[in-house]
């Protein structure tokens, strides 16, 4: 039952990406292109995607907080880390450059596999390689001692 519901939850997420237009890299890039405000090509739709998603999640999360535990689990797994380290700047900076180059972030890229897009296959394969390298680097004790002592939880 947990597996079936996680499939349904992923499907709802994917439908949200498709219906909102976020699965279209052209739309994402036209949002990120602020010079388009002057030339009339700016597409502010992405701000509405974020607004809709955050509004629903904010209200929903607050309701869930009153529950003792999730339906299919022992406890809620929430990030506990608070401090701002180098990785919370450098990671998103690298991520943002990649996002701006192709207009794909992980959700839309994975969803694009279902479009039968060969571009998505290339992107997702490279993304998997990047993820594995980052996990490998993060697991190296010498490196993480310097960069992120609090990650060793």
């Amino acid at each position: 039952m947990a597996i079936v519901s996680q499939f349904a939850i992923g499907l709802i997420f994917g439908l949200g990406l498709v219906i909102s237009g976020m699965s279209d890299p052209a739309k994402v890039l036209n949002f990120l292109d602020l010079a388009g405000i002057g030339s009339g090509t700016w597409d502010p739709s992405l701000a509405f995607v974020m607004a809709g998603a955050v509004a629903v999640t904010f209200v929903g999360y607050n309701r869930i907080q009153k529950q003792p535990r999730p339906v299919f689990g022992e406890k809620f797994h929430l990030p506990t880390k608070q401090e701002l380290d180098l990785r919370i700047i450098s990671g998103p900076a690298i991520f943002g450059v990649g996002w701006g180059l192709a207009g794909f972030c992980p959700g839309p890229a994975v969803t694009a596999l279902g479009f039968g897009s060969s571009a998505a296959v290339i992107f997702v394969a490279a993304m998997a390689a990047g993820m594995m390298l980052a996990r490998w680097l993060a697991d190296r004790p010498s490196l993480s001692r310097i960069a992120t002592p609090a990650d060793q939880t």
Partner: protein
Amino acid sequence: MVTTAFTPIASLIGGALIGLSAVMLMALTGRIAGVSGIAARLLPPYTDNEFAGRLAFVAGLVVAPVVVLVVTGTMPVQTIQASAFVLTLAGFLVGFGAVWGNGCTSGHGVCGLSRLSMRSAVATIVFMAAAIVTVFVARHWG
């Protein structure tokens, strides 16, 4: 570049569905709906036994455009202009950066902001700024 239509209503509805999905995942499994975290943990090394659930979530994502095709009769619009080289570079940077920064647009941008997390707010501002600068350089320089 191709111009795209401003779609406030569809984007708001789609965004709300993304939010609904995030809320359901938290209520049912107690997990943050961060696609990069879910996808990265489908790759080795494995640290817990929730592989099947993560695979089911990702399968749901992949099936979504097919469902839209079946229901509406047309595949939704998707325009990808990046070359294979740019896609490879971009994918690598997105994958590396998302894991290195503990989240992506969904984990930090949607779930983190909704939890009023300072780390996620910083991450969201940084990746938005980096993406905006990258698009500006790619489109308007040279």
